[in-house]
């Protein structure tokens, strides 16, 4: 299955990633390869096999309700492209 240019552009938009023409070429190639691998997996006969949501057979990994110190304010905003009044500043979103 091949992903179209438009599909890759749409995915990039959803992921908020800026892509140029060269990226579009490269990613549609790579993403298509991933999908093709899933097509191979889909050929396996799974009749009678229950679905698995987790590959590791763990369950009930749980913690007690104890509060611990959080990050320092400077650390929280260290990577923020823009900040204001101690908050992350982002582009307006329409409700």
């Amino acid at each position, binding site marked *: 299955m091949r992903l179209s240019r438009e599909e890759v552009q749409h995915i990039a938009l*959803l*992921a*908020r990633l800026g892509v140029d023409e060269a990226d579009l070429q490269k990613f549609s190639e790579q993403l298509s390869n991933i999908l093709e691998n899933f097509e191979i997996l889909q050929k396996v006969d799974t009749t009678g096999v229950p679905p698995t*949501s*987790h590959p*590791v057979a*763990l*369950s*009930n*990994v*749980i*913690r*007690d*309700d*104890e*509060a*611990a110190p*959080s*990050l320092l*304010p400077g650390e*929280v*905003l260290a990577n923020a492209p823009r900040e*204001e*009044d*101690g*908050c*992350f*500043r*982002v*582009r*307006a*979103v*329409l*409700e």
Partner: protein
Amino acid sequence: MEYETVIGLEVHAQLLTKSKMFCSCSTDYADAPPNTHVCPVCLGMPGVLPTINRQAIEYAIMTALALNCTIAEHTRFDRKNYPYPDLMKGYQISQYDNPLSHDGWLAIEVEGGERRIGITRVHQEEDVAKLWHRTEPATGETYSLVDVNRAGVPLMEIVSEPDLRSPEEARQYLMKLRSILQYLGVSTGNMEEGSFRCDANISIRPMGNGGSTAKVEVKNMNSFKAVYRALEYEVERQRKVLEKGGKLVQETRGWVEEKGATVSQRSKEYAHDYRYFPEPDLPPLTISREMVEELRSRLPELPDDRRDRFMSQYGLSRYDANLLTASRAQADYFESCLELFPGGEGEKKAKTVANWLLGEYARLFNVTETEITECRVEPRHLVEMLGLIGEGTLSTTMAKAVFEEMFHSGRRAPEIVQEKGLAQVSAASELEAVVAQVLADNAQAVADYRQGREQALKFMVGQVMRATRGQANPQVVNEMLVKKLEEG
């Protein structure tokens, strides 16, 4: 044409845990500066590992049990994807097809008894960040500020079946649900502060028709009153559309308080494609039956049981018992008063205390917009005041004035009675002069009484009460007057 209203409610309640749902940041963010209760997990940094908070799961199971739900043996978390900046990760950790619990009910009061409203499910998820929308004054550019403190706070979602048939039933359901959460101590249930939120699905259909029309989702209702008003508005709006031969569309509408109306919200791009899939970072949960039974044994007496007990133990009416037990704090207050109240008949004491709580207390809470948890009159101080009435020091009329003073100042009854000279006068010697004066001034009434008109006596008692500014003990005055009149 007669229409039937169909309403289902979706409630989100923040849980009263110390730490967040999947990280150890404190949930005590109410007065904190922005982004001070934040760590790599709730910031959604790559490579972090969330871990489930045991207390949150226990609270959600207790709630589900109180709502008569079946607790799943196996449950897991899922990612709900949507692009909105209040989600730091680009998805919310929620539950989709294996929720913690399902198929319960909650009873609401309707005319002539109670009705069970189905609960579809109670599941666990996480709260999102807070956004502030701003405009750059110079350029007019709009932007948003993100405070992550709230993101990751445990959020419990309670979904009802579309069993509610009127805005009033919806209000009843919400009040009962909040009351149960408060009895359990799992949430503050405060709607104005946003720890208890409600969205509604509402549609109308021709009576007896059974089929369904387009469902409208109503959001932005920030108080019980707003829910009631928004739903009333929607019933009317939808009826008018149908009566004009129009067609209702499935949409989301927001309640705008200032307009007193719901307004269509432009649907978000890709809004309904959440692409749910199992959260790979959180292994599934197995809930043992032992754990369920252990939590069931920890459930407190719930509002309905307490109401029934108040009716049988104290002989209260269903109506009064419902009002008294609606808030756990009020029911506790009521029972504390009874414990402190010395001697006497149980049912009579209960009736007296209930009358005060549902009368003067309720009136003053209403006027001052406060609640019993903020009340400055302690149970022992009410009992002390009732004692003054019992021994005849304070008349019932005067008691209301004294109580109002206690309520506002937090001072105690004997002090107020003494300071203001409000004590009831029962000593005949102190009333002699006033009684004589009233008899002298009202020759007509005296004559009427002698001709057998009982009304005249009542009038003269009233005159004495007036002359003593209500302080005379009316029973004593009555006796004195009769004696004087008989003596001729």
